[in-house]
């Protein structure tokens, strides 16, 4: 029997096995993965390394493991032959790229849980290949025609969509933060394909991959149905490369930038808030300072004021932000004072700063937001105003009434301003802007909106409750753990070492810590 028929037969053993009890299915997949790891270490798979037709014997939907391992060997071979990490075959539309794309859009999410490291390496290569192709096009066009074609944006898009689909295929909840998260947002920003990142960005992250040896609740078989993906997206699984503090900060900064590009200011503020309130004992990271600068501008755009950092931000970090982002704070004060001339002057004075920080686009939008925020503020003082009076209040120099009316109606129509307009028969007579409207929407509509929001919040809360349970368990805070800890204390007596905590340092808990709650 040839090796090919051996492999086909080994893989076929797994077909239609997903109806088996999870322990049995788990055993079969583990055996298959072990088999391929053995073939890989003994270099037996090398005989297929250059066989372009080999992979056509397998369907990634049902033969994910053999497909992944052989593809990996073929990629390594191409890298060796070309002495290049990203050979031409692995670039978009190359032969290996096509196979990788076919695999990443069709693999079996359960089988791949057992080969997380190999999956991650493939995802990273696809990401790197699309980025590298983009760089190559950039250099080519600079030397060829002196201009950078939009082609450089297209290649990261190829990678971004594949990476996103692969992530969602492996873990539809995307609840565990992995290195692929960062790769995805980076590719989406490079490709200017912002909404491409949303299916992942919009999902709540609850965990980092837990380290080896930590117990988790639920079934032990990786293939079983798990309430939370943290059970199988572990450090040992290799689905994520080693994560650093910097990766975490970068992901939320880049995610915030995606939301900014889509003008979803509220979400952007949430992401930036995570970055600027990250715990820091050492000198503040530059990423956090960058995020704070954007936080100030997005705060003006969303809320019309200089927003304080989240309350959990340490005071010394806030002081650092305030000293390093001085021009932004001055700009925000000018905005808050409602002085358009001063705001314009500050924007002109700080032009070099905004450009150097790549924030000029946001600053330009702040000027646009000034009008809407000023009108919203007027609504807190007046019940109604004619458009002519409003124009005098908002603009320092006279502006055509039609311009003001058009701007106000745009604000109301886009629902940025909660007010209504009342026109009169006479064209010459100015329209009336009513802030406290008697023409409010029927109560039913308001309640429907509210109910819809509540439903959305409830979905998030359900996910939070499930994942909180997992986190408690991982941290040793579950009810079962506390109960057994209590029993252990009773049994062991005061002089003996606790059987569960053992002699490990750092687990001593001051029981009076919660005294103020009683």
């Amino acid at each position, binding site marked *: 029997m040839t090796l090919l028929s051996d492999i086909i037969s080994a893989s076929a053993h797994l077909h239609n096995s997903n109806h088996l009890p999870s322990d049995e299915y788990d055993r079969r997949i583990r055996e298959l993965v072990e088999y391929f790891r053995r073939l890989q270490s003994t270099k037996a798979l090398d005989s297929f390394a250059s066989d372009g037709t080999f992979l056509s014997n397998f369907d990634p939907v049902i033969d994910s493991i053999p497909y992944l391992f052989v593809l990996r060997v073929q990629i390594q071979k191409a890298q060796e032959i070309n002495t290049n990490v990203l050979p031409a075959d692995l670039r978009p539309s190359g032969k290996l790229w096509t196979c990788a794309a076919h695999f990443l859009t069709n693999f079996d999410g359960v089988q791949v849980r057992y080969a997380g490291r190999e999956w991650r390496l493939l995802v990273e290569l696809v990401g790197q290949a699309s980025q590298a192709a983009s760089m190559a*096009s950039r250099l080519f066009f600079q030397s060829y025609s002196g201009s950078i*074609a*939009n*082609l450089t944006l297209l*290649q990261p*898009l190829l990678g971004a969509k594949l990476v996103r689909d692969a992530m969602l295929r492996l873990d539809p909840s995307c609840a565990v933060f992995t290195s692929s998260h960062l790769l995805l947002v980076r590719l989406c920003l490079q*490709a200017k394909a912002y909404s491409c990142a949303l299916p992942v960005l919009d999902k709540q992250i609850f965990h980092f991959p837990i380290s080896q040896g930590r117990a988790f609740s639920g079934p032990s078989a990786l293939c079983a149905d798990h309430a939370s993906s943290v059970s199988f997206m572990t450090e040992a699984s290799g689905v994520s490369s080693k994560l650093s503090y910097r990766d975490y900060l970068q992901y939320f900064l880049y995610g915030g930038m995606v939301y900014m590009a889509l003008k979803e200011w509220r979400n952007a503020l949430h992401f930036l808030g995570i970055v600027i309130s990250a715990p820091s004992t050492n000198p503040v990271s530059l990423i956090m300072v960058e995020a704070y600068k954007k936080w100030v501008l997005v705060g003006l755009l969303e809320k019309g004021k200089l927003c304080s950092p989240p309350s959990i931000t340490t005071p010394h970090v806030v002081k650092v932000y305030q000293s390093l982002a001085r021009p932004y704070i001055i700009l925000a004060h000018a905005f808050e004072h409602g002085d358009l001339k001063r705001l314009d002057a500050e924007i002109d004075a700080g032009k070099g700063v905004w450009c150097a920080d790549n924030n000029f686009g946001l600053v330009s939008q702040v000027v646009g937001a000034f009008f809407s925020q000023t009108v919203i503020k007027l609504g807190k003082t007046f019940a109604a105003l004619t458009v002519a009076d409003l124009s005098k209040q908002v603009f320092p120099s006279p502006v055509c009434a039609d311009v003001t009316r058009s701007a106000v109606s745009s604000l109301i129509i886009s629902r940025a301003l909660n007010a209504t307009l009342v*026109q009169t028969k006479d064209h010459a007579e100015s329209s009336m802007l009513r802030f406290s409207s008697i023409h409010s929407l029927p109560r039913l509509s308001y309640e429907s909106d509210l109910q819809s929001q509540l439903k959305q919040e409830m979905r998030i809360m359900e996910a939070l409750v499930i994942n909180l349970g997992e986190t408690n368990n991982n941290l040793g805070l579950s009810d079962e753990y506390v109960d057994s800890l209590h029993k252990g204390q009773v049994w062991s007596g005061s002089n003996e070492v606790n059987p569960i905590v053992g002699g490990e340092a750092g687990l001593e808990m001051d029981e009076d810590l919660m005294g103020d709650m009683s």
Partner: protein
Amino acid sequence: MEPASLTIEQLSQLVVSNAPPSQLFEALSRYELQACIISTGVGSHNTSSSDSTLLSLFYSSFFLVHLLTDQVSEARALTKRIPEALLQQDPSLQNCLTLLRAVWQTEHGQVYQVLRGLPWPEVLQPLVQRYESFFQDKTLIAVSRSYEAIRLATAATYLGLNEELAKQEDSNIISNFTKCGWTWDLESKLLHPKPIVVSPAEPQSSNGIRKAMAMLGTRAA
């Protein structure tokens, strides 16, 4: 499932299909990868004219479907991903840019002018017409919530109706609004809109709040 090859026939079928906008968006999103690969020839002057026609049709349709699904910011991002040479030379994509500018600046009159007055390829007509009705409906809802009283001519401009006829208080123009429950005051010559309520897409669960409270109670216990 992988999409069939990107061809003019395939695109034409999609465009004329009456599929919901979200489905059209999904289908066209899947084709963008193929469009990317085809367009890699654009810069190296390897693209044939049929490729350019295909890309023009693809990107124009994709752009219109972005608007049809109310993704204006992403439609703008799409225009940054279209190969520059194609974007500058192709009349259909130029129309898309003009339309984007009008939508972005909420110039309602200009939007209708672009949709009705500019020469759109025959294949794109179904999408152009769908977007026009979508834009009209969306505007009608927004105006009904934004005005307590509005002149007929202003309302007509918002909906792309004949402004001259509106000034003459044409009964057909008036009936466009009165059939939505708006009232026409003959004395003041003003329309009084009735706010249009859009029911949420998902059916509401009556015990949703109770379930949420029960869940909180469980955790608090």
